[in-house]
């Protein structure tokens, strides 16, 4: 068990492991997304209230959930990096932040596109989820800005890890405070909580999309961490050997 972790923490080992892992994540992920897209967009019945507009949930729900998942990766990676001084964990944090920001942006974008026919506006300050996602996006920006402002990688790693950990406490506070705030201002609730059970024809494509996006996220993350590790270890021997090795020989 522990030797597995120690091996995982070693950059060259991770670099090789990730190369094997990526197709195993990406191919099932893409297949699930293809299945979910086709069934979600063409097969699933229309919603009795929202018509075809509801179909954006097939993109919106996975991106929104991954935007928060990425933040957890960042904070947990930062925590592990600070406590056990594991360099790979910091590399995960560095690699996941732009990915998380991208997913947060996509969640905001799809939410706003959905809001246009449903609420009649692109942006609705009264909706707690939109507002807290926006704050989440700003938290990602702050994290990336801090990282890029510090030249020394080891220092940037630790400083941004502290910020990610402070931020993760804050995300919870943001969630509840925004909910309290919007309950003051919102006249009527636009979406009922825990509405009627979903039709299986709608539900299964959604589950497929969530799983598919998660796998794709894993593949993208593995790829980004791989690049990050390669860059950070650019002066080490194994990278030099890898680069100088004859093509095809890994």
């Amino acid at each position: 068990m522990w030797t597995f972790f120690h091996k995982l923490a070693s950059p060259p080992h991770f670099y090789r492991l990730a190369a094997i892992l990526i197709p195993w994540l990406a191919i099932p992920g893409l297949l699930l997304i293809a299945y979910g897209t086709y069934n979600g967009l063409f097969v699933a019945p229309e919603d009795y209230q929202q018509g075809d507009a509801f179909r954006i949930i097939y993109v919106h729900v996975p991106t929104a959930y991954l935007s928060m998942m990425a933040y957890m990766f960042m904070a947990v990676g930062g925590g592990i990096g600070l406590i056990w001084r594991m360099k790979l964990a910091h590399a995960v944090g560095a690699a996941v932040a732009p990915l998380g920001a991208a997913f947060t942006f996509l969640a905001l974008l799809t939410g706003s596109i959905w809001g246009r026919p449903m609420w009649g506006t692109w942006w609705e300050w009264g909706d707690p989820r939109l507002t807290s996602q926006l704050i989440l996006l700003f938290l990602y920006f702050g994290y990336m800005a801090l990282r890029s402002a510090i030249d020394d990688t080891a220092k940037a790693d630790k400083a941004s890890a502290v910020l990610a950990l402070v931020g993760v406490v804050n995300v919870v506070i943001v969630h509840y405070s925004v909910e309290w705030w919007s309950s003051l201002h919102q006249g009527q609730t636009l979406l009922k909580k825990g509405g009627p059970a979903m039709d299986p024809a709608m539900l299964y494509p959604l589950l497929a999309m969530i799983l598919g996006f998660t796998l794709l996220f894993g593949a993208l993350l593995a790829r980004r961490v791989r690049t990050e590790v390669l860059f950070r270890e650019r002066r080490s021997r194994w990278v030099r050997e890898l680069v100088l090795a004859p093509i095809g020989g890994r």
Partner: protein
Amino acid sequence: MISDKPSQPGIFRGLYATTRRDLLLAWKRPGDILNPLFFFAMVCTLFPLAVGPSPEQLIFFGPGVLWVAALLATLLSLNTLFLSDHEDGSLEQLLLSAQPLPVLALGKTLAHWLISGLPLVIISPLLAMTYHLSATVVEVLMLTLFLGTICLSLLGSIGAALTVGLHRGTALLSLLILPLAMPVLLLGANTVSLAADNDPYATGIWALGAYAVAALSLAPYATAAALRISNE
């Protein structure tokens, strides 16, 4: 600060000494206290000039404006929190001190709040009067600002510690702290708005108080960790 005696002074001595030192330093340079206050007053003046002097409107957006101005004024004063100590090397002495660093960080943050937060609370009624806010609303405003500036100073000390010694520190500090400070602003300003509408507002006060207590007990540790990272 540096004692020759082998016996270790208690942590309250350390807290007191750091706070006292920062207060003394601020007393010698009154500009540090006054600038954020002037900034606060000026931002509060900008809004009526931009939006118009009608009293109904001023009452309506007054709580929000005062709160945003207080947030910005606190932010403005934050980058000096560790800067001069970093420049003259006394920050390193604090790090080397046998006193627990979180306590010293808390001492500096406390001094920062006394210098920049408390004066804001004290002059806020003056500005609130120009926004035609009623006496009870002003009381709530002062209470929320009192709790809120504590939260902002503590949160800000983490950001200031993370960015101390960086070239683009000031803009970066705002970028780091503003998203963290949003819940404080939201709770503070909306509580005052609720009070202005004669709605029950106790929830906001309790939530701000809880935030202040949580920040008071957790933020010094984050600030201390950040200071160590910035100075290694």
